[in-house]
């Protein structure tokens, strides 16, 4: 792979004084030193993006592009049009930003699709791509238009897959937020134009229609009637050919793919109405329905436009997560004391790079702070709004925001290896997977269309045979009034909105079925340590056994523990205060205790048995009994002669645990506590939370057996753990919930991850899950009822064509609007962006 590497400043080749980017023609930024080798010459580049593209073009032997092109690409870094669908995307340097390498030659990429107008398009694309040899998995989210594609690079290159998408009339691009925005924007604008044309011309046609209707009653001279009809025809034509184009295109696509799509009935209805009117106009006899045609198109387009906006809102919160990674980073090179700064693409960072983050900038990669002290807003990972202090040695995560002062960090994970990327992948998986409910609705929608077409033909034939003039408007109404899209929309919009809402609170949904199972769970199993409790020991009591005072004993104990990461060591350090003496010659006996020398005297810290063995002195039985009751942690400090002090520890209960348990029991769920801990400790926690069913001293296999037992009895089991232990039981449960800060994201295989690490948010997730399921059911029921009522009504002639168009649009909108209730309090994408900008993006004036 020949990734372009920024090298020391090079004199631009050929036209020596050129200060423009060779690829895009933008002026070079000062101190820019990006180059790419084109035609054997190093060329100056304005940014790493251009450099990567230019290098790729050159390496593919397409350097002629630069000789032949007549126009510079607009906007940097742009890929020239003729290469857009071509091999440039196979180049590793270009793939770096959006492709993830899995085992062997398997690759996974996030794509964005242009031209998806209905749920059937999703189905078509998925089916079409899945049959390509080498494509392993395709999942497309209708709401966000994003696709997750997995393929075997040894069998098929990415460009072939992209070409295959284009062959069936769509366009696929590598997902990048800016491009996604552009695609959406373009689609929105073209819809707006079509809508406008349909509206303005529609009004003219309606005016003429009023005259014609009035004339039909009051008499109109044949001359004017003919004139108005021809005029209506002329005005309807642009509406049909321009505004209604998307419907015809989609219908044609469906026909070619030999399947019944959502737009087929619409296109048929339009053709029928227009064809009938045309015939009437040409023969000067019969009714014209031009007003119905334009009305349809206008209402359907209006409905679609609103739906597009609503869907955008539903997915905004989920999308927000992805857009958080900055594009550029400041890399430090050279001497550590007087480093040189260079701006590089965030995706070009590698482990062990040193990076400078100025206040107001986002952290471009995961890493460890090496210099500086600041506070960092990690809200996107944890939902926690309060900035966290960070100093040397602390870990920072990509996408969080540096607030106060500059930080230097060493990169530990960049690009696709960051926790943010892992999170995004998990969320994406949840959003692109189709839960069983959605698949069933999709199937129903397709079957429904297959029923509508022949029944329309039958009904139309019946009315025609009775000699009624109504057969045409009735057939048209039947074709248009049915709205299978409402069925297909019901589930995905609700899920996307709910997942986005939860992500904003710090609850990550990683599986599509998670919310459904969560809502339906009958049994909730909690783990104890780290789940109901904080998983962090706290010193509860110090009992002196000798002449030394408690504070002194604490300092000695903390000294013996040294820099250990053992929970007891941390608890001791938390309270010991600053002036801990230095211990040396520390000897650790794992599981029992440690010893260390402080000013020529050896101290021991550990379990009573360890102390007894080391000093030959024991603590009296009843004292030990008293200290060790309730299953609390106990450590004894001794010197060579006698025990000095005993410390007891406990693992404090999370403050929000009892409320959550009470809430779950209030919902009628059975709450269980299964733990591997000492039964006394388990009993204490269970009592504090109000859990009746609890078991202690369970091995992982016992927990698994218990989960399976419950499932055999017909329970829907939700299991809450710390995500790392109990993997088997978590995997077996219907839905698993992992408590997790940071690192857990990559490790946990849970369906739901509580990034906020707050149990209260789990309660909120439960609430949202129930609401989601309720809304999905409502949506499906409403869509089904609407169609079941509308079709017969149209067949009997009770539905005028314009009413049919209104009904169809309204039913789609109703479903999407219902799902929008899950988005939450505020429209996130604007308010949040503006808030962030106002708070942080006012850079301090340069210290000149």
């Amino acid at each position, binding site marked *: 792979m020949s990734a372009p590497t920024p090298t020391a400043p090079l004199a631009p080749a050929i036209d020596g004084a050129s200060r423009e980017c060779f690829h895009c023609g933008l002026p070079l930024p000062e101190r820019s030193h990006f180059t790419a080798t084109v035609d054997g010459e190093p060329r100056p580049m304005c940014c790493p993006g251009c450099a990567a593209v230019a290098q790729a073009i050159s390496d593919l032997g397409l350097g002629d592009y630069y000789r032949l092109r007549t126009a510079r690409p607009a906007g940097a870094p742009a890929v020239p049009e003729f290469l857009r669908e071509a091999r440039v995307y196979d180049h590793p340097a270009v793939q770096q930003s959006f492709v993830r390498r899995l085992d062997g030659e398997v690759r996974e990429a996030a794509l964005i699709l242009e031209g998806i107008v209905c749920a059937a398009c999703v189905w078509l694309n998925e089916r079409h791509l899945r049959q390509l040899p080498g494509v392993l998995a395709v999942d497309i989210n209708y709401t966000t238009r994003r696709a997750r594609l997995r393929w075997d690079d040894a069998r098929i290159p990415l460009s072939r897959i992209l070409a295959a998408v284009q062959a069936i009339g769509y366009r696929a691009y590598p997902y990048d937020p800016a491009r996604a925005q552009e695609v959406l924007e373009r689609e929105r*604008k073209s819809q707006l134009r079509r809508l406008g044309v349909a509206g303005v011309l529609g009004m003219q046609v309606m005016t003429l229609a009023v005259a014609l209707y009035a004339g039909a009653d009051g008499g109109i001279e044949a001359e004017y009637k003919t004139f108005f009809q021809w005029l209506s025809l002329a005005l309807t034509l642009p509406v049909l050919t321009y505004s209604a184009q998307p419907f015809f295109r989609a219908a044609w696509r469906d026909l070619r793919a030999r399947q019944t799509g959502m737009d087929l009935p619409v296109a048929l209805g339009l053709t029928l109405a227009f064809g009938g009117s045309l015939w009437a106009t040409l023969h000067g006899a019969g009714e014209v329905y031009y007003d119905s045609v334009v009305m349809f198109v206008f209402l359907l387009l209006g409905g679609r436009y609103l739906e597009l906006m609503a869907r955008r809102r539903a997915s905004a919160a989920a999308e927000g997560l992805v857009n958080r990674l900055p594009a550029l980073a400041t890399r430090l090179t050279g001497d550590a004391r007087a480093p040189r700064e260079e701006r590089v693409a965030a995706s070009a960072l590698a482990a062990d790079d040193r990076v400078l983050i100025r206040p107001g900038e986002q952290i471009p990669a995961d890493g460890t702070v090496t210099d500086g002290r600041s506070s960092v807003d990690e809200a996107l990972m944890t939902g926690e709004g309060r900035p966290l202090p960070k100093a040397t040695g602390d870990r920072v995560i990509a996408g969080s925001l540096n607030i106060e002062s500059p930080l230097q960090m060493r990169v530990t994970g960049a690009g696709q290896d960051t926790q943010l990327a892992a999170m995004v992948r998990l969320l994406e998986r949840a959003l692109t997977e189709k839960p069983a409910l959605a698949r069933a609705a999709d199937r129903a929608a397709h079957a429904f269309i297959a029923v509508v077409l022949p029944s329309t033909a039958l009904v139309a034939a019946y009315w025609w045979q009775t000699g009624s003039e109504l057969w045409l408007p009735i057939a048209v109404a039947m074709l248009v009034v049915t709205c299978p899209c409402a069925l297909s929309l019901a589930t995905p919009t609700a899920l996307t909105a709910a997942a986005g809402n939860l992500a904003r609170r710090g609850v990550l949904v990683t599986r599509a079925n998670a919310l459904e199972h969560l809502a339906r769970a009958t049994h909730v199993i909690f783990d104890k340590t780290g789940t109901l409790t904080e998983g962090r020991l706290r010193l509860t009591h110090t009992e002196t056994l000798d002449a030394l005072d408690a504070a002194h004993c604490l300092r000695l104990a903390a000294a013996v523990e040294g820099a250990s990461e053992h929970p007891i060591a941390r608890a001791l350090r938390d309270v010991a205060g600053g002036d801990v003496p230095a211990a040396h010659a520390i000897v650790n006996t794992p599981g029992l205790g440690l010893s260390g020398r402080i000013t020529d005297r050896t101290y021991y810290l550990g379990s009573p048995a360890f102390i007894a063995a080391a000093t030959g002195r024991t603590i009296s039985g009843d004292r030990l009994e008293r200290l060790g009751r309730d299953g609390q942690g106990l450590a004894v400090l001794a010197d060579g002669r006698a025990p000095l002090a005993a410390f007891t520890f406990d693992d404090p209960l999370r403050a929000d645990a009892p409320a959550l348990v009470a809430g779950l029991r209030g919902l009628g769920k059975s709450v269980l506590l299964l733990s591997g801990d000492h039964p006394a400790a388990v009993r204490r926690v269970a009592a504090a939370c109000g859990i009746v069913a609890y078991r202690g001293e369970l091995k992982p296999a016992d927990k698994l057996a218990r989960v399976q037992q419950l499932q055999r009895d017909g329970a829907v089991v939700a299991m809450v753990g710390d995500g790392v232990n109990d993997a088997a039981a978590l995997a077996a449960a219907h839905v698993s919930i992992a408590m997790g800060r940071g690192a857990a994201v990559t490790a946990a295989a849970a369906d739901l991850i509580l990034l906020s690490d707050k149990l209260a948010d789990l309660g909120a997730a439960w609430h949202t899950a129930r609401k989601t399921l309720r809304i999905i059911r409502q949506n499906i029921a409403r869509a089904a009822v609407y169609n079941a009522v509308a079709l017969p009504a149209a067949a009997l002639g009770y539905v005028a064509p314009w009413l049919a168009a209104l009904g169809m649009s309204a039913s789609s909108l109703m479903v999407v609007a219902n799902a929008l209730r899950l988005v939450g309090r505020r429209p996130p994408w604007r308010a949040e962006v503006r808030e962030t900008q106002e708070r942080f993006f006012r850079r301090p004036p340069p210290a000149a």
Partner: protein
Amino acid sequence: MEIVYLLIPLVLILAGVVIAALFWAVKADQFDDLEGPAHRILQDDDDRNPKTTEPRSTKNKH
């Protein structure tokens, strides 16, 4: 009634003008942000640097 032969072409021209205006508006991003301008009037764009006395350049970032 002959007047319609004058009025209708006039109306059509008007419709054409409306459509042209709409296309221009869409192209010029007039529909881009329908909420922002309402809030913008409330925002203080105080100059952070008191030394510059000229009014801030109007940045139409879209």
